[in-house]
């Protein structure tokens, strides 16, 4: 199994997609605190204070999550697009083992990208606060928890990406379905069902709740939201496994 996981990591590393995507994410994670520092206190934006570091840390979370989700999608659905699934299947004929290796590899990548985003965003945020003569308080304002949760959230994004790609087997369909689900279905469903709280229980809402430092009534606790997301990933993986029993290459 270790060889399979290494092979999956090698697959991701040997195209420019990982470096390009993560490079853009880190660039934006660096730029966001600078823009935030420049715009703070104007318009609706509150003035900078030591607690602003928490906001700067979470600011790139959606972008980083989307990037890791995309890497996960391409890691699984991309095998079908480029037909590399044939060489993979010939080397390891048990598709569930390959899927498990992909999930493990994307967990590693999600964690690594999360740590990198933490370091870059915290570094840039700290520099902005220092530039404005404010104290840097990295162990207050829930920052340690956020720094720990960010890599876990990105790992979850990666796992979801792999699972969606494995079910749909098409990069176009997987990206399209994810966008439609996130921006259309999840926006409409709570209204159609007349259950506004439903939004918190759907994947995008749950992802948002994992990073929520102060959940209120009706919102999911971060741990519950993470567990829910793992449940969605497990459901997709089980669907993929069931479909693979009937589907051929």
């Amino acid at each position, binding site marked *: 199994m270790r*060889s*399979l996981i*290494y*092979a999956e990591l*090698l*697959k991701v590393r*040997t*195209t*420019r*997609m990982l470096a390009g995507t993560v490079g853009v994410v880190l660039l934006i994670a660096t730029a966001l605190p600078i823009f935030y520092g420049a715009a703070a206190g104007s318009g609706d934006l509150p003035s900078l204070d030591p607690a602003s570091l928490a906001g700067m840390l979470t600011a790139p979370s959606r972008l980083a999550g989307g990037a890791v989700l995309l890497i996960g999608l391409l890691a699984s659905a*991309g095998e079908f697009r*480029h*037909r*590399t699934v*044939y*060489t*993979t*299947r*010939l*080397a*390891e*004929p*048990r598709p569930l083992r390959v899927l498990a290796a992909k999930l493990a590899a994307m967990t590693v990548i999600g964690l690594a990208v999360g740590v990198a985003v933490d370091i870059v965003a915290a570094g840039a945020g700290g520099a902005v606060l220092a530039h404005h003569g404010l104290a840097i308080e990295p162990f207050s304002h829930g920052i340690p928890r956020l720094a720990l949760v960010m890599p876990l959230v990105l790992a979850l994004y990666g796992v979801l990406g792999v699972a969606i790609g494995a079910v749909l087997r098409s990069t176009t369909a997987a990206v399209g379905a994810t966008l439609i689900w996130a921006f259309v279905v999840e926006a409409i469903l709570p209204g159609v069902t007349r259950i506004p709280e439903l939004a918190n229980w759907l994947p995008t809402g749950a992802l948002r709740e994992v990073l929520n430092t102060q959940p209120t009534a009706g919102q999911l606790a971060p741990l519950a939201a993470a567990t829910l997301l793992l449940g969605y990933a497990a459901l997709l993986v089980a669907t993929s496994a069931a479909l693979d029993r009937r589907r*051929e*290459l």
Partner: protein
Amino acid sequence: MLIELTGLTKRYGPVTAVEDLTFSPAPGRVTGFVGANGAGKSTTMRMLLGLTRPDSGTATIDGKAYAELQNPLRSIGAMVDSNVFHPKRSGRNALRVIARIADIPDRRVDQVLALVGLTDAAGRRVGGYSMGMRQRLALAAALLGDPATIVLDEPANGLDPHGVHWLRGLIRALASEGRTVFVSSHLLAELAQTIDDVVIIANGRLVTHEPMVGLLERTNGASLEEIFLNLTNPTPRASSHHDMEELA
């Protein structure tokens, strides 16, 4: 290593691609697999390699289905298509990925790249390879595990005359090392120079499986192409310009 196909049948809706196919390529020999387009050659090979599920029958390697083999690349190397590599990955990295799955060291990657003549192009992206180069890379992938059995589906596709000549030598060299080679091709004249035994199928059914020597003797030295045409389509066919004019 013994390959056995027994009662193999595959249907796609109303179309029967392969029907009750039973044969076993002899170990240590080169067996040619011949059939018209759509005769079921690729489907048969894919069933052997576990890429397609048969509706009935079995395809085994030393008594085991492909999916039951531990580290299959060490037992059987296969080339099913040349377009099975990520275009943005270099040739060497494409093979390293496969080697990593099968616990094959990177030095073997360089060995097979040299064997197929791709050492100089190993660092280039596969997307920039010609079809012949991709074919060679696919062959290299099949040889990665130094397997005792090699299955090649149309390996001469896209190769220039030099490449075809080289491929013939490679297949003979692999067979001289005692390996079983099971190879399909449309280039019958070329195939006849390479193979020890021939399996001919038509409409998914076995027509004949016998040594080339015996087949050629039995048919008074006819070419493989003539034998194939006669066995798979017994209707009289035009053999000269005069005959063609008469048919017209």
